[in-house]
């Protein structure tokens, strides 16, 4: 179980902002934590999946996609800020993510 530091938080935010800026072809200044991923910048669920893979590699995470899927059903993500929060939880709890709901 990783500890989330300010550095981790900053790194994750930077990766997420840069990722969506590039993928959705929008200027990074047009993205903020309240940006709706689907409605505002035309993002999709494949992008979410790709981000998970990026973070899995970056932080060497042990987590199954279906664990994230089950968590996401109960905690749907709509905005960039919510997505960053979820990625931080994934990094922190990995395969124990679902225990947060117990």
């Amino acid at each position, binding site marked *: 179980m990783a500890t989330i530091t300010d550095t981790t938080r900053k790194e994750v935010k930077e990766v997420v902002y840069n990722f969506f800026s590039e993928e959705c072809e929008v200027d990074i200044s047009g993205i903020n934590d309240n940006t709706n991923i689907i409605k505002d910048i035309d993002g999709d*669920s*494949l992008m979410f999946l*790709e981000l998970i*893979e990026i973070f899995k590699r970056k932080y060497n995470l042990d987590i199954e*996609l279906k*664990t*994230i*899927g089950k968590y996401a059903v109960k905690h749907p993500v709509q905005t960039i800020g919510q997505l960053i929060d979820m990625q931080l939880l994934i990094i922190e709890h990995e395969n124990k993510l679902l225990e947060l709901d117990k």
Partner: protein
Amino acid sequence: MSHKKTAFVFPPFASDYPDDPFTYLPGFDDCFRKFLGRAAEFTDADLINFKIPERTFLEDELKTQYIAYIQACSLVSWFKLKGIFPAYSAGYSMGIYAALYQSEVISFLDGLVMIRQAFREVTRVTGKDSFGMCAIIGLNRDDLEPLILREDDKIEIAIQNSVCSFSISGPAKNIRSLVEAAQGEGALSTRIFTITVPYHSSYLKDAAGNFDEFIAQIQFRNPRMPIVSLVDQEILLEEEMLKKEVVRNLFTSLNWYETQLYLQELGVNRFVECGSGKGLVKNARFIEGDAITMTANSYSASLNQ
């Protein structure tokens, strides 16, 4: 200078048209209109009304196949005029007809006629029964198979796209039920396609006989460059192999994931999606290896740099 071995890959049908998908292909629109005009003359006059900004025909199962094929053939022709030929080609699902055209196995018009006939045959055998397809992303095969069993084996994996992405075919009712179960199991993304044919499943086996007889009358030539089978990743080098492939493609499960991996083993390090969308480009991000997959537009732009 790194040596690039390129494969052209062909999408099955258009599910959306991004704005200005061919900006880096000067003169492409004229080329496309020429192909579209011929297609309208010989198959369906309405095709001439196709316009990308208006998202024309997206709800019409057959016409989206025509449009994907016409776009692909126009791209092939455009690249040929520039002297650009791939080392291999592969067609995803109904993209097989464009792969055949690319490799000069069939004529443009024969490809259109084959698409039309295939559609007639598959809709004849499915009749009024309600079928469909869906995509399940985020579950692997081991997660998915128990869910399929739960549907009394009425649904089948039509295409494996990556380790955790599958297209599924079967009765519409079971498809809906599977999607619900997959979401409960933790699928990150599910989507029911707006099509009524259970492609690449045994439900279409009865279409094979008539389609085989039809294909026998079409003139095939040996391919100018190899085509890779999505059924078993065999390299198809002779016209008879290709005729068999076209028929079994209708009712046999396909594996795009293994095909793209195999092409990498053969030294392919660049895949070019010959269509207006980015479906295969996006999917490639979940396939291992160092190869890059790009749109025809990006490929053209990279050639000019």
